[in-house]
């Protein structure tokens, strides 16, 4: 079965520190990759997505992610975090090859980011 692993459950950083959140998935076929962010008390919002082309994807609010196919990874990065980045971050994978549940997102369990001012 497909799965998505986010290695860190809770990350605590000070403002201006650099951020990297890990995401690995198990499926070897054609995939779309997403990072969603959930601010406290709010719904999930799309941060960035990868479909094809340049494996380095830039999203909103200074976030970027790099797709490394050989490592089945799609890690999220930000050079300098702000207090307002405090949120929970979810990596998600969409398979394009399976029938039936084709197109359904498989979510990781999430990583909580706490940024200290």
């Amino acid at each position, binding site marked *: 079965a497909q799965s998505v692993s986010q290695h860190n459950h809770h990350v605590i950083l000070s403002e201006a520190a650099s951020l990297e959140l890990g995401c690995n998935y198990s499926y070897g076929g054609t995939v779309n990759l997403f990072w969603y962010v959930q601010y406290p008390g*709010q719904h999930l919002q799309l941060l960035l997505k990868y479909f094809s082309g340049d494996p380095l994807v830039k999203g909103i609010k200074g976030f970027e992610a790099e797709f490394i196919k050989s490592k089945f990874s799609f890690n999220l990065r930000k050079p300098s975090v702000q207090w307002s980045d405090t949120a929970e971050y979810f990596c998600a994978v969409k398979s394009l090859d399976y029938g039936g549940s084709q197109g359904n997102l498989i979510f990781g369990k999430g990583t909580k980011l706490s940024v200290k001012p």
Partner: protein
Amino acid sequence: NAGVTQTPKFRVLKTGQSMTLLCAQDMNHEYMYWYRQDPGMGLRLIHYSVGEGTTAKGEVPDGYNVSRLKKQNFLLGLESAAPSQTSVYFCASSYSSNTRTFSNQPQHFGDGTRLSIL
């Protein structure tokens, strides 16, 4: 543009009671989804629908039923609520995932329904 609207936002039920959560989207999306979000578990797919009149089971369908009588609405029902169903429920919608044109479209999420079963 309202996007994805969920009602109610909060609800407290007693064990054994039934209720229906409503999800409405105004983006003409074909696909709709119901997820539950539990601490440390991420989002898990309960049921989904690829079009009006069709539904399918997701990862955790037991204890839930769904209906998609109209394209814009996707209902999630709990016939006999159990404390294990205490969760935050999110509805989402997207364009068809079966075409390459839209295969990279993200899902749009509602604001969630916080449900407590006593």
